């Protein structure tokens, strides 16, 4: 369509300009705001300009200002309260008669500027401290952890297997005397290769043995942490949901009966609200799964909960990907497939040499979509397990939420959010770059 210059200007003002300003307002601006906050120790509730000052603190500020005009300005808005000897910001200004008016934004900014000139602000910049702390956050980073196997409240184990005894206990003891003591009390039985506790122990020996076991019997396990779980979730979710979606799309692309009905059925989970999906599945996990599988605890089990979460996410997400793959399959010209059939190509040859290369654009979109969605997954985990048991199923966004809103560490949480943003940009960027290059090659 050819439009006149005037027409172009009209559409620019009507549609593009609002879109651009909204984009700046709701995306660019918050992004930079977020990066700014990630360098602060803001706790989330302290307002930008302090609401109150201790008496001497405020008087100190006035002295430091050394500028009567500014001091008067501050005094106008901070009024002294006798009862608790505080200077309080009056949010409502009474000027002459009539209704009081609210403090204007301009006045707020002016107050902020004046306070800043003497280095008073309620939000402190702490440089990279938030990012450094992330490395020490034992919930966040994957790490090896000593898991102690013996609890001083337990009875002494009477039998320990040979391998466990050597690896988890003997190797951890360096002192020869302690080793001897241990080997004296646990005797090796070669016939079934186990170490067995001596029959009669004195009180003293028992206490000593308990303290040795308590401190030296451990194994090292990898705790995936928040990052580890996010990567686990992303890997399996991307892999399984794409595989399932592609399989379904290939099946439903044939001339089978009821294919439209089946298509809508597989797409249905995507239409239902995620909260309802989570409710539905928590009932399934509690009432139906134990009957089928014989395992009674799913979402409450630290071992199975991560897999259960992935399962629900795949079930919920693959319908959408299926639709994209189906659309891709339908753009493949039927003649091409027919010709290859005539030429004697087997079904798998048709699949790998004709359909898949032509589906590459669909792969690009689906991978991008599922990658970025899995890296920032939140709602399904929140509704299913709330990140529990413990921290086992906490992805980064849930962790950010917990840091910010449950533990009052806004600055720290924002730093994590900035990190997540970078991770997503990096991973999806690499993926898009690689796949687009392949597409061009074709």
């Amino acid at each position, binding site marked *: 369509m050819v439009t006149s210059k005037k027409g172009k200007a009209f559409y620019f003002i009507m549609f593009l300009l609002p879109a651009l300003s909204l984009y700046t307002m709701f995306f660019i601006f918050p992004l930079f705001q977020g990066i700014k906050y990630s360098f602060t120790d803001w706790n989330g509730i302290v307002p930008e300009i302090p*609401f109150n000052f201790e008496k001497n603190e405020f008087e100190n500020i006035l002295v430091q200002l050394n500028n009567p005009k500014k001091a008067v300005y501050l005094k106008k808005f901070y009024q002294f309260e006798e009862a608790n000897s505080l200077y309080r910001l009056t949010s409502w200004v009474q000027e002459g008669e009539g209704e009081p008016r609210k403090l204007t934004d301009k006045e707020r900014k002016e107050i902020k500027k004046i306070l800043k000139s003497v280095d008073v602000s309620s939000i402190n910049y702490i440089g990279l401290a938030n990012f450094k702390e992330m490395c020490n956050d034992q919930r966040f980073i994957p790490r090896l952890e000593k898991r102690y196997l013996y*609890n001083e*409240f337990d009875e002494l184990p009477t039998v320990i297997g040979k391998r466990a005894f050597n690896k988890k206990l003997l190797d951890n003891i360096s002192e020869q005397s302690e080793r001897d003591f241990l080997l004296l009390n646990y005797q090796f039985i070669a016939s079934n290769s186990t170490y067995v506790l001596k029959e009669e122990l004195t009180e003293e020996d028992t206490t000593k043995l308990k303290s040795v076991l308590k401190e030296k019997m451990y194994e090292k396990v990898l705790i995936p942490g928040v990052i580890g779980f996010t990567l686990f979730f992303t890997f399996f979710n991307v892999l399984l949901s794409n595989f399932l979606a592609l399989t379904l799309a290939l099946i439903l692309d044939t001339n089978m009966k009821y294919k439209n009905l089946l298509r809508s059925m597989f797409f249905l989970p995507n239409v239902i609200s995620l909260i309802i999906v989570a409710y539905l599945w928590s009932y399934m996990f509690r009432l139906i799964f134990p009957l089928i599988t014989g395992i009674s605890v799913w979402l*409450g089990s630290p071992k199975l909960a991560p897999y259960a979460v992935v399962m629900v996410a795949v079930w919920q997400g693959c319908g959408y990907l299926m639709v994209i793959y189906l659309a891709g399959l339908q753009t493949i010209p039927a003649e091409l497939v027919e010709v290859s059939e005539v030429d004697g190509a087997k079904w798998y040859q048709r699949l790998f040499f004709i359909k898949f290369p032509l589906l590459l654009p669909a792969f690009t979109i689906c991978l991008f979509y599922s990658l970025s969605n899995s890296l920032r997954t939140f709602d399904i985990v929140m509704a299913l397990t709330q990140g529990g048991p413990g921290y086992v199923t906490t992805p980064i966004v849930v962790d950010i939420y917990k840091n910010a809103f449950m533990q009052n560490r806004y600055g720290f949480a924002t730093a994590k959010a900035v990190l997540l943003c970078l991770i997503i940009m990096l991973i999806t960027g690499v993926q898009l770059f690689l796949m687009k290059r392949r597409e061009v090659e074709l």
Partner: protein
Amino acid sequence: MKKWMVRSLLLTLILVILGGTFLTASMADKVEIELFYYKQEIVKQMGDMATAFCKKNPDISLKLTLIPNDSMTVLRTRMAGGDAPDIIQLQAYSAVFEFAQAGWLVDLTNEPVLSKVIEGAKTSVTYKGRAYALPMDLAGIGIIYNKDLFKKYNLKPPTTFTELQNVCAVLKKNKVTPFAGLFKVNWSLGHFISMVHSTLAGPKVMPWLEAMNAGKGSFADPINSKELFKIIDFYKANVSANAAEMDWDEQQAAFASGEAAMMVQGLWSYGAAIATNPKLNCGFIPFPCTDKAEDTKLLADVDSTFALSAISSPAKMKAAKQFLEWLSTPEAIKMWVEECKLVPTFKNSDVSSMDVPFQDLVKYMNEGKTNPWAFSMYPVAVFEDACKNGAQEYVFGLKKANDVIQYIDETWRREMQK
């Protein structure tokens, strides 16, 4: 259709939308104040109370905002945007202190309504010697038990740990689950660990808290940590078999149906259980942690409070203060007790019409057999993360007792360094 027609249509549409939004604002001449609350069990009752209040004060209208589970999130987000509701329902202690410290709350110390509150309740809202909220209801955490089931098996409510063990043994023998469990979400276990900790520590709690806040000491200091984790192990051994899958709703259902004879919960859960099964006959006792009956005290304290926002306009603040004043009138107390089923904090309130568990709570309060909610005084991150998650991780075998204590100590120290 002509091009200009389309354009003018679009333009008028936009103008109408813009005009509409401006017009709807500033229509009323009444003072409208907003009350923000999180207690989802009193939705209808709050509406009734608002109506009753507005009838008395026709020039004020009360807008109710209910945010049940994430109230603090919503509140903080609103405050970060420079906006706050006029009346805010807050949890006692740390929530009040936190907002008072940031300067969001009005100092209520000299308001006449505060002199009507029982003395013991005021510590929960007093920050640096000034009261910043009105304590509204008392709640306890302990064992809610099914009296009919206890009678059936000829059991007495236990007062020592040994007695509790016997009760559980008898119940188990008769195929009744001793405790309806709730392990799927972490808050209940967080309450449990701090309840046992406070009960074991007894009078040592307050000096210990001071030491912790000074950066000294450890969670294990005032108690024998062996006992603490022994009791958690005991509790774990006596809850419903699939407690790891159970949510609050399922816990209530299991208790209300008589499947389990007891539940360790706050008294706020009683309402849900009795609503499921109105025939339920319950009692409320403290959780015994030692074999000395005099150590067995109820963990009871102020639960919710009403605070006023310091940035409300003077007219709204006046109206909000009027509402707080009205809450102490006999009419409001009656509604609070009979309809909301909450134990009021006002002096000489009449609670004779309340159900037995509430009477039990008041009895323990009057006898002075209570411990304060120490967990409300922990730094927020310590209770929300270290205690709740730590206890859950211990129960699921992800962390050992010493790791839990160490993690609580580390978190506490980190919070104190700020």
